[in-house]
């Protein structure tokens, strides 16, 4: 087993865990820059597929993708290393930084930082949508599927699971066999 590869895997997912604010979707940009741009561990179309799989299987997106990418790179050992990497920052911060952590969160400067991070997180999600769009929207059918599901999602706040299921059904119907 290539030790350096495992170390890279751990460090990449550690960074994803450490810098991901605001939930799963903001993490997509971080994952992309580590997995595709920096290391070339997955192709863009494999990447969008694993996001789809992560959406339809239980658990946080970051953990699902860490397990999947780790497996693709270095089997079961790789998936264990990547998964431990992505959860380590949370464990370290929440289990060791007791009072210090509370002082940071209660500091009025923290609120200003969080308010600045929110637009940044939205930018990351927008950028993720654009780059996933380049891979996923390959013809007018896929464009129409994305547009209609987007409208349904924003208007009716539909559960992501059902939207993904709708995508699968539409794919089966309209795929150019």
């Amino acid at each position, binding site marked *: 087993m290539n030790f350096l590869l495992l170390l890279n895997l751990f460090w990449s997912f550690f960074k994803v865990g450490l810098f991901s604010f*605001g939930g799963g979707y903001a993490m997509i940009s971080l994952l992309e820059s580590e997995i595709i741009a920096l290391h070339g561990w997955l192709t863009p179309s494999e990447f969008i597929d694993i996001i789809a799989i992560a959406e339809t299987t*239980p658990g946080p997106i970051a*953990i699902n993708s860490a397990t999947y990418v780790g497996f693709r790179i270095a089997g079961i050992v790789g998936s264990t290393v990547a998964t431990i990497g992505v959860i380590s920052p*949370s464990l370290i911060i929440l289990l060791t930084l007791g009072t210090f952590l509370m002082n940071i969160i209660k500091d009025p400067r923290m609120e200003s930082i969080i308010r600045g991070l929110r637009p*940044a997180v939205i930018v990351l999600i927008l950028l993720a949508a654009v780059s996933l769009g380049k891979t996923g929207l390959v013809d007018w059918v896929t464009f129409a599927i994305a*547009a209609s599901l987007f409208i349904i999602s924003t208007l009716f706040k539909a559960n992501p699971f059902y939207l993904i299921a709708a995508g699968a059904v539409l794919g089966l119907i309209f795929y150019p066999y």
Partner: protein
Amino acid sequence: MGEGDYLDNSITENENRSPDNIGASLLEILFTFLKIGTFTFGGGYAILPIIQREIVYRLEWVDEGAFMDILIITQSLPGPLALNCSIIVGRRLRGTLGGLTAALGIVLPSFLIILLLAAFLLPVVWNNEFVQAIFYGLRPAVVALVAAAACDLGRKFVKDRLSLSILVLLLAVSLVFHLQPVLILALGALLGLFFFRKSKQ
């Protein structure tokens, strides 16, 4: 009082029940979070209400006010929301070991399911035409979900002119210079620190 208690007491002045007399064993913590981890689909914002239902209303391990505090901490810190929330709840109940147990419970189902998929199912079905058809439709669905998430968060959090300006500025700068995501976050934090403080004075 264990070493983890300052975290609890400092955030929940209205919490009069000591974590020690709730009586949740490590095994109960493990099974509760295994269940939550197994039956929740999608990301953090979908999981948090389910954690609340289990922990606050069904098991009464944490009261409502304390759970609100936990959500605030969860969302101010990096890392998957569901994971952060689970670690804090586990730690309140049984200290560091409780936190580790809750983390194991929430992570293990995803880990095993993805492992099974990646090792056995996907390699077998991948070249099947129908599987390809499903992914042909899943990809635009993912694009729609991600774009919708951006709009949703925008409506929730970008309500003042300053937030909107930061958003537009960061978007323009990152489109022109292809900034690393970490750099975009750092810029956002700096702009927030500088301008939101000033706007309060």
